[in-house]
């Protein structure tokens, strides 16, 4: 490790989600201005899936977005960004490589586990191994960190950073790090945004298999309706609580990324000179509001304070209604995009 202090002049901006925040911040450093919602849209990040066969901590996975890391991949492809990606077996080598890139004056994105990030509030520190941060400097054994979900930058000790970079579980983080090596200054944002939009619309409207895309929502509704009788009260409520967390917890910007996507539609309306997308944004906002209503009612149930008449069946009804709205929305968007 070189002894030299290094601080890359990195402009940190807070975002709702780690992956899109890292994209937006890294791109700005390299001279390409894209907002977080624009990064999310170009990377066609919005999705829906409920996978009863895939469990994390014994609870089926529900997701409102595409797989971790894929927003970055699609964004890079659509914009023509070349990324250098590396992972490591050896911890010292992983840190040496990080130091080397920092010494070149470049900020470095990396995959970490929130469990091992001491600067985050304790309540968020579960074994979640897909958290993206940017390291932009080093002072002795302290590394300078831009964690996109925080309002300011912070620091982390070398030992802690090594732990966070080499967490085990789902997935092993393997010291994964990445940085842009070529960012086009004349990127065609219009084309990229249109492409990202089309992809989301198609995948939400047309993905085969019942558990994916907008029809995954009524699919979950069917399962949810039977939770209590199949799982018993305790587990049923745990499953329900997990749904709320996946939808609302730190990182989605509210309503399972639906508001962030609506913000993208609004930006795209101006960028592509397609005023009808502003109307679609309004529609998506209304759908997002329905997701919030769902979470609100679910939260009361988890707390044991539900209104009379509130049940897994009424929650399932809400999901069915949201599913109908999203199916109509994305079919229409797929047809017109």
């Amino acid at each position: 490790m070189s002894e030299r202090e290094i601080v890359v002049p990195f402009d940190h901006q807070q975002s709702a989600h780690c992956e899109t925040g890292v994209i937006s911040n890294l791109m700005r450093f390299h001279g390409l201005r894209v907002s977080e919602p624009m990064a999310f849209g170009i990377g066609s990040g919005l999705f829906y899936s409920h996978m009863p066969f895939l469990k994390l901590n014994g609870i089926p996975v529900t997701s409102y977005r595409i797989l971790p890391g894929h927003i970055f991949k699609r964004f890079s492809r659509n914009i023509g960004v070349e990324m250098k990606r590396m992972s490591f077996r050896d911890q010292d080598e992983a840190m040496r490589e990080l130091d080397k890139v920092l010494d070149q004056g470049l900020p470095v994105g990396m995959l970490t586990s929130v469990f091992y990030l001491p600067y985050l509030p304790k309540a968020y520190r579960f074994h979640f191994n897909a958290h993206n941060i940017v390291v932009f400097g080093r002072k002795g054994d302290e590394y300078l960190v831009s964690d996109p979900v925080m309002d300011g930058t912070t620091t982390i000790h070398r030992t802690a950073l090594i732990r966070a970079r080499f967490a085990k579980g789902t997935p092993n983080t393997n010291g994964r790090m990445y940085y842009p090596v070529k960012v086009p200054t004349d990127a065609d944002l219009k084309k990229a945004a249109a492409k990202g939009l089309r992809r989301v619309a198609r995948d939400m409207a047309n993905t085969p298999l019942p558990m994916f895309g907008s029809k995954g929502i009524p699919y979950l509704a069917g399962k949810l309706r039977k939770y209590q009788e199949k799982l018993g009260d305790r587990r049923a409520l745990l499953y329900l609580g997990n749904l709320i967390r996946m939808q609302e917890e730190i990182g989605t910007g509210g309503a399972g990324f639906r508001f962030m996507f609506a913000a993208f539609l609004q930006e795209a309306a101006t960028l592509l000179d397609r005023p009808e997308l502003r109307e679609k944004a309004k529609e998506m906002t209304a759908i997002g509001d329905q997701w919030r209503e769902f979470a609100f009612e679910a939260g009361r149930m988890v707390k044991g304070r539900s209104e009379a008449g509130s049940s897994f069946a009424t929650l399932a009804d809400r999901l069915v209604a949201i599913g109908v709205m999203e199916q109509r929305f994305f079919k229409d968007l797929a047809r017109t995009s």
Partner: protein
Amino acid sequence: MRKEDVPQDDANILEGKFKVVKYAVNENGDYVVVPSVGWEPENVALEQAWDVVHENVADAKKKVLAGESSTLAYHMEVNMMDAALLAQHMNLPARTVKKHLQPSEFAALDKALLQRYADALMITIEELKKLPE
């Protein structure tokens, strides 16, 4: 969600360290980012998840006190790990770690292995060998 409807239900989950941002529409119908300290359903769900962790830790503690488990089992739960995950950190087969969850097997471990467990669980050997006060 309108800007003024962005919830500010503070359950001290963020420990006052920062606010998260949500997307909401302002009076002109334009999307903006709005800081939030939390939302009740989110807080409730997070609390529920922690209750499970705390129950697991309490169960592990009981088993240690009853002589059914080694202190390793307790510290494993504190780190929110199961034997499979701890085994990955230790580079050992899961069944070996499971064996070490038994008091007699744990008592026979050599210092080197104890040190590796202590490192994986971010404590000292002394702490690993007992329950906290």
